[in-house]
């Protein structure tokens, strides 16, 4: 970047990782969130779905690679579906050196939380604000 000045850090966007048991679900929710955030959003979003063999499940390697790929220095918010996706992210966070610094597991509904997280991150909000917005998606009642 030509304008890599002290202001550049403030322009850095929070990265979003979407972890699902299914590669298709993770990739589709990433597309959905990017799409609803408005065309051309710069928010780095990476899906980490299924196992490395392409089966249903969770892969620590895919999660770590996805987190590294969206890390712009402003933190990484990780959203998960359930079960082993949650436990694998927690186990990786507990190890301390497996995920980028300032990575957080965000307690949020997967689809609604992903959309909210990407929309919020696109405004340049920091990690805490992205986390709060995604968690708030639990309160959107439908009936």
């Amino acid at each position, binding site marked *: 970047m030509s304008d890599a000045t002290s202001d550049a850090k403030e322009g850095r966007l929070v990265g979003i990782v979407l972890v699902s048991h299914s590669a298709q679900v993770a990739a589709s929710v990433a597309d959905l969130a990017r799409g609803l955030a408005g065309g051309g959003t710069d928010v780095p979003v990476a899906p980490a779905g299924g*196992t490395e*063999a392409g*089966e*249903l*499940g*969770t*892969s*620590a*390697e895919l999660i770590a690679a996805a987190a590294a790929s969206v890390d712009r220095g402003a933190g990484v918010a990780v959203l998960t579906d359930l*079960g*082993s996706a949650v*436990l*694998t992210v*927690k*186990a*990786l966070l*507990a*190890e301390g050196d497996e995920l980028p610094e300032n990575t957080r597991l965000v307690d949020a509904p997967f689809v609604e939380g992903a959309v909210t997280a990407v929309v919020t991150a696109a405004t340049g909000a920091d990690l805490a604000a992205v986390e709060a917005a995604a968690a708030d998606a639990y309160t959107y009642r439908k009936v």
Partner: protein
Amino acid sequence: MLDADFFRRWMTATAASVDREAEHLTALDSPIGDADHGSNLQRGFAAVTAALEKEQPRTPGAVLILAGRQLISTVGGASGPLYGTLLRRTGKALGDAAEVDDGQFAQALRTGVDAVMALGGAAPGDATMLDALVPAVEALGDGFAAAATAAREGAVATTPLQARKGRASYLGERSIGHQDPGATSSALLVAALVEASDE
């Protein structure tokens, strides 16, 4: 005293036992889970034995930390991070001593079991691996054979329990009457301590 070779034997004995029992574990996982517990653990412990052979860790702690890391990355189901955390935390608690005594091991394993409890948020009685591991840790002072018996009895005792964690818990009362696959594989892990000390 227990040295790195003992812990290596523990892992290879567990891998062999998981191999023998893989179909049984998957069969237990079929009515209440997603029918992959045996094959997941088989893949995980095969990766453990391969990594131990390749990297030749020299201390008890290093053996268990490497084994745990392999399980987290290769299992693909919830048992990966759970068993991975159990072994890694136990390994970390053993520090870098070349040998540990039975008491130090029992204390370290308790640290590992506590970490599993914190990670999964389960308690004894929820029909999980803790129902085998917690009684095993409590019996470890009386020797490996006593721990193995306690773990096996704990696993069998999950049958009348309603599952409160994981995929099986979605079944509610219909999970009652099924022996928990995680408690069953945990009993294999504990029983492998006896094999490792016999050799």
